[in-house]
């Protein structure tokens, strides 16, 4: 068992009939970090999250939870906000919140006090005695989020936590997640397709595709590793002049005219690996009028797309 790990997923496999949902997946979630679990639809993320919640069992492999073999007795230390979520429509908001808190082992009075705090913080107060059927979708989402974090779990699993929120409430929830992470007591496992959130919140990620682990590591490292010598330049003049000046010194991948300003063009180039980029910039700036030149930094979206594309190519 790895020290300082909230979760150690070790060669976990699961099949549904002939369909392999997870194939010997192996990665570690460090304690107190925000860890992104990424992957296209059908990658096996939900299967893995359900295993962590004791809903399904692995066919093979093991999962360690803070150094112990994961079992149902650990469930009260886990908070879970599934992607497919809902509330009992005919119950009152407060009554329902208390019900779930008690199911998670909280005492009624403790639960009530903490609920009041969170309801106030996320601006849900005033809805305590309303029936869920009267509550808006965004409000219900906030209530569900509160129910997942109320018992201060050691591991908080959030599956698409921001879907369905307007930008203001999405930011409010995002800030809450970051606050919890900064306090360092809660490890957050975030499953999402929103790559902006991943860049903003996650320390590390694991990318699953077709049931297998494709990428794993710190976000910045993965983005750095995905760099491939591409350079983004902005210039004035004509595209023809620029192409002629470029000659065979670099591969022109893409040109966007009149961007970011009229009369300017943005080009994406790939320099040969042996090229000294600062010398090349010095040389090209004497030939065309450069306004900016930066080494291309792939976003998590680019990392994701590239990894999925490459895995799909290998598989076919």
């Amino acid at each position, binding site marked *: 068992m790895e020290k300082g790990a909230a979760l150690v997923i070790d060669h976990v496999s699961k099949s549904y009939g002939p369909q392999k949902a997870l194939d010997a997946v192996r990665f570690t979630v460090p304690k107190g970090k925000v860890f992104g679990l990424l992957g296209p639809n059908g990658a096996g993320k939900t299967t893995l999250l359900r295993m962590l*919640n004791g*809903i399904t069992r692995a066919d093979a492999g093991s999962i360690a939870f803070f150094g112990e073999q994961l079992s*149902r007795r650990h*469930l009260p230390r*886990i908070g*879970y906000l599934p992607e*497919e*979520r809902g509330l009992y429509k005919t*119950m009152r908001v407060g009554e329902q919140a208390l019900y779930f808190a008690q*199911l998670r082992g909280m005492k009624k009075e403790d639960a009530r006090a903490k609920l009041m705090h969170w309801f106030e913080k996320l601006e849900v107060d005033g809805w305590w005695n309303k029936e869920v059927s009267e509550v808006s979708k965004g409000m219900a989402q906030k209530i569900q989020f509160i129910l997942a974090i109320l018992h201060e779990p050691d591991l908080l699993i959030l599956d698409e936590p921001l879907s369905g929120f307007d930008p203001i409430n999405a930011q409010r929830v995002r800030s809450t997640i970051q606050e919890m992470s900064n306090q360092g007591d809660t490890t957050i496992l975030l499953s999402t397709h929103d790559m902006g959130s991943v860049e903003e919140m996650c320390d590390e990620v694991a990318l699953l595709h077709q049931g297998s682990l494709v990428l794993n590591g710190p976000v910045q490292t993965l983005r750095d590793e995905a760099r491939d010598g591409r350079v983004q330049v902005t210039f004035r003049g004509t595209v023809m002049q620029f192409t002629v000046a470029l000659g065979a010194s670099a591969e022109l991948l893409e040109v966007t005219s009149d961007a970011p300003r009229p009369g300017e063009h943005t080009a994406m180039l790939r320099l040969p690996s042996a090229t000294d980029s600062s010398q090349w910039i010095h040389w090209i700036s004497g030939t065309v009028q450069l306004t900016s030149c930066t080494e291309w930094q792939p976003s998590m979206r680019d990392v994701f797309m590239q990894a999925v594309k490459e895995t799909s190519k290998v598989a076919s």
Partner: protein
Amino acid sequence: MKTLKHIIYREWSTRVRRKAFWLGTLLIPALLAGSIGISVWMNSGAEKEAKVLVVDASGLISRFDDRREVWLPTHPDCFPERSKLMYRFAPEAMGDDAFLASDFDLMVFFDDGILQHSSAKYYYEKAPAMSTERAISSDLASAIERFKVKRDLELDFETYKRLKTSIQLVGEDVVTRDGNATGRALIGFFFSALLFLQIVIYGMHVMRGVIEEKANRIVEVVISVVTPMQLMTGKIIGIGLVGLTQFALLAALGWLIYFAGGRWLEASDLLKATSDASVSLDFESWMATQSGLRFLLDVNWPLMVTAVAVFFVLGYFMYACIFAAIGAAVDQESDAQYYTIPALIPPMLAYLLAASSIENPEGDLSIYGSYFPLTAPIMMMTRIPMGVDGWELLVAIGGIGIMSYLLLLASSRIFRLGILTRGKRFSWKDLWNGLRSRH
């Protein structure tokens, strides 16, 4: 155990506080009384007004009154002028057209051979009610009987009536010393029917509850906190307690109506007016004087109420397991029909057997039906008022207990498999695979 308690309480409290629950509880006695009233009203209404022309070609039952110049019955008391039945007599039949044009509803034809073949043909435009037909047949038979008594026995009819004897059979169980087996069979059937309804209704509640949790997408949150088995068991127990609460309320309501109604009747003069007693009677003594109600005093009501509660709990639990699995195996209620029809066959069969056992409450069918676990909860209720041995109750309860346990094991597997499956309806093959899977 604590989580189970919370689930049970939620299932119970959210249902018991609904207006529909209270309305339903209060409506059950009203509906029962209403349905009895409607059937009585419909029976009385079924006897339509009928004007009957008796064509007496035989001349045996009618005569011509010279003074009034009409044909009249020889013995008018055989043809009493009832409010809904009116007789006229004639020696010759009308033609079809004349009959249709007349205000007669029926034309009964007595030919010369009536004494030999004992049958009379009748004509109508609209078929009469069975009760009308029975009344006419009885009146005509009485007139012919009167003719025969005078002709063959040369007896005065009043003397004949005195000689004529009928025997009324009065049964008594040698063990319980109770009489009126039919009355007790009816009581048994009433409770069987009530149990059938409650088992099916609350079983369906369980199914709907599971479907609702799936449709509301709340199930994944719940299942991440409690096991599917805990969720299913909590739901079944919670909803079962709603059924028991309703039984308790109905029993209290029944007692209140009996007690308050009895005191009100005692205070009024109605009891005295409807009995032969010259002194004032209390309600129970009045019931004892009424042949149609006397058997109600013989029923062991505490035993019946206890039996209803016990067999409801057992029967409901057994069927609720099946309905919970059905709820987990489908996405919406309309898909559930595929499975509910086979699941409803055993209780329906038990209900039909219970209805048929009114005729023969201690027949083989009733006895074996009350042992077979799937029909026992409903069938046993028909037998308890007749008296059953302790070992028979143990066989029934034990059988239901074993069957419930097996169904719980089977259902929990299907429930665990189906509860998180969306977008598909399980085939019978899927269900079979679910039964065989371990997790």
